């Protein structure tokens, strides 16, 4: 005991532990938070290519604070914005009382010390999306003109899109990481042989605005594209043959997404909303004129769950997922604004493991022989009951039972509401089933046993096992 005391008094006081330091820090902050203060100067160190005018804009709202608390919040906010612009590897903040001898008493200097990301970025990889796999490569040049502009050139080769080339140049609006505009050019060959006996070549240019509002994510875009439907299979149906040829589309579209789910691939709670509108035939360019609406909504509810699962040593390993009930509804309407029938590439397709399970990809709706022709109006809905598997509750594996239903019909502008409803409900395609879901980090994989209950004549249904791989399931 004596020794201990002596030692303590002889040497300097022991350094405070992390908790203690944090506690003291918070105490200090609390005490000073309401004291007046203002930012006297702001410097960004470590930039080489980034333009001064851009940085001024990006950090402009750091100067508004009147108290120390405001300043700290503003600085933190700005640092976060800088980080999210995706041009800096790291952003460090130094906040100090002003060194300027002429500065007022309560003035502060702010220094952001940043490290710019490398300018060139090469990426190759394989990707799996909604029912499609591809390999791709892209070259990205960051911060092209010193204003967080991004120049991206990419090529990909895949199962559905035989080849796709894209070029885009984007820049943030008002130096904000949440709003970007871009101009792009693209050329895509889509292989629709599997379900529609043709190939489609799309070449186009466009401009896009992506941004956030109080309600959610918005994307507004203009696109001018030249589509060619060709390489009709030898045994392709006459309806597909009539679709062959060139068309030019000039369209503006807006899509709105509000995503409040806790997980994109396998949500347990929250909701998701998506609205898309497209108006084709803008500026009297092209031969494609239509107005297209699409709505998607889904909601998930969790019952039970939340307990901590422990392994045999009593250590927590996961949280019990409970039983999840999820409901998904989709609908769409395409109204042509001239007397021409809509092009197959603009029409809706329905069916497949990602939309109505128990039917083949694009297996629901208008059809000529084995070619699906797409429709102008549709609805589809799905209810799934997702449960943890016994003994495997901590793994990303679930069992589920589902009911899927929907209908896709041809529709002409001017058809009365009652006739439309009658047509939409006359031939519903319904399937039930159960299966296993595996949530991989990049995609969701399902193996289902499907039982089609009712079909419309001509529908391509699939009894028994069906494999589904994708992001956006119903």
């Amino acid at each position: 005991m004596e020794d201990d005391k002596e030692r303590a008094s002889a040497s300097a006081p022991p350094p405070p532990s992390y908790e203690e330091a944090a506690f003291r820090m918070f105490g200090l902050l609390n005490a000073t938070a309401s004291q007046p203060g203002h930012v006297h100067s702001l410097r960004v160190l470590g930039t080489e290519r980034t333009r001064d005018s851009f940085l001024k804009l990006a950090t402009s709202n750091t100067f508004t604070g009147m108290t120390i608390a405001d300043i700290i919040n503003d600085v933190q906010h700005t640092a976060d914005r800088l980080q999210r612009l995706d041009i800096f590897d790291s952003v460090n903040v130094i906040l100090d009382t002003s060194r300027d001898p002429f500065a007022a008493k309560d003035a502060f200097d702010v220094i952001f010390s940043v490290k710019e990301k490398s300018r060139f970025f090469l990426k190759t990889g394989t990707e799996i999306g909604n029912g499609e796999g591809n390999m791709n490569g892209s070259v990205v040049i960051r911060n092209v003109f010193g204003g967080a502009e991004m120049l991206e050139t990419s090529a990909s080769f895949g199962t559905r899109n035989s080849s796709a080339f894209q070029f885009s140049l984007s820049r943030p609006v008002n130096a904000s990481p949440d709003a970007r505009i871009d101009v792009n050019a693209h050329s895509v060959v889509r292989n629709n042989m599997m379900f529609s006996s043709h190939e489609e070549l799309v070449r186009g240019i466009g401009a896009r605005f992506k941004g956030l509002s109080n309600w959610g994510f918005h994307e507004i875009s203009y696109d001018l594209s030249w589509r060619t439907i060709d390489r009709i299979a030898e045994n392709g149906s006459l309806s597909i043959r009539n679709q062959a040829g060139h068309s030019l589309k000039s369209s503006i579209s807006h899509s709105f997404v509000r995503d409040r789910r806790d997980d994109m691939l396998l949500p347990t709670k929250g909701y998701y909303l998506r609205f898309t509108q497209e108006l084709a035939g803008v500026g009297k360019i092209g031969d494609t004129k239509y107005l297209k609406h699409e709505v998607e909504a889904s909601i998930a509810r969790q019952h039970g769950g939340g307990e901590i699962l422990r392994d045999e040593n009593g250590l927590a390993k996961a949280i019990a997922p409970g039983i999840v009930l999820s409901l998904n509804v989709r609908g769409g309407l395409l109204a042509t604004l001239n007397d021409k029938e809509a092009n197959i590439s603009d029409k809706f397709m329905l069916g497949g493991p990602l939309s109505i399970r128990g039917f083949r990809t694009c297996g629901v709706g208008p059809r000529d022989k084995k070619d699906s022709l797409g429709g102008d109006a549709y609805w589809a809905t799905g209810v799934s009951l997702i449960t943890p598997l016994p003994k495997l509750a901590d793994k990303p594996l679930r069992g589920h039972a589902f009911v899927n239903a929907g209908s896709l019909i041809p529709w002409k502008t001017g058809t009365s509401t009652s006739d439309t409803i009658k047509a939409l409900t006359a031939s519903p395609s319904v399937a039930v089933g159960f299966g296993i879901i595996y949530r991989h980090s990049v995609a969701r994989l399902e193996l289902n046993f499907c039982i089609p209950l009712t079909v419309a004549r001509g529908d391509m249904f699939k009894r028994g096992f069906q494999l589904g791989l994708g992001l956006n399931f119903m």
Partner: protein
Amino acid sequence: MSRPQLPALPTIELPAFLEPLKLKKFPLRTFPATYEPPRPTKPTLQVFGPGWEGKQASFDVDCLSMQVYLKFCGVDFDVVHSNEPYSSPKVKLPYLVVPPDHCLYGEQIHHWLQKNEKNKRLEKEAEDIESKAFVTMIEKKLGAALLFTLWLEPLNASELTSTKYFGHVSSPIDKLLAYRKKEEVVQSLLIDRDVLIREEIYQSAADALSALSVKLGANDYFFGSDYPTYLDAVAFAYFHVILAIPQITDSNADKEAKRHATELRNLVLNHSNLVKYTKKMYSTWLK
């Protein structure tokens, strides 16, 4: 050496209690189809159209010759102005759709006619072979001159031909397609010759026309036949298309260019029996 016969694969019979797994009973209910695709009830010939004069005749020689030949053969068929070569299995018009939905093109149409004993050929074997030689001559010599007139005489190409072939495609794609087509025509003409000389091409067309004029004489059909044959179909198609091309009346146009635009037409007009033949055939078969 014959390969040893492999034993047949065993077929596995599902035990009776597993039979329901096949789900034979499902779907429980089949509703009417959401859409019934239209089915042609008689053969339809997909062509470029409508023609210069009269809506019936195509403005494309290949389409028109097949169109009129099917008439000679007594086939009951509809003509559809699809104007879209991409719809054809061979990316070329014309093609014939035979109910329910079988597509025939090129030689296949001739085989189909032969199978149905509808084809028309000359009775004498030697004449039949000679008529084939005439068809080849027309396609080679007159064909080259017609392509040249349509696509490489600037007045015709810009004012008439491009609009006829690509007018249904929206601007500016039509211009691009017309330009591509012109390049294609140049390439196809250069297969047989090293340089494109206007006088040379029209001269060989004039020779062919003289030969045809002599061969036809004052007869109703070539080779003095009582009924028209494939040679008549091809010859008529070429004469009709050449004569039907509208003349440019724009007075601002260069005189020399105008003369070139109508040069081939004048070559046909030189032979009064060919003109008479074309008029008669048109009124007999296409009106």
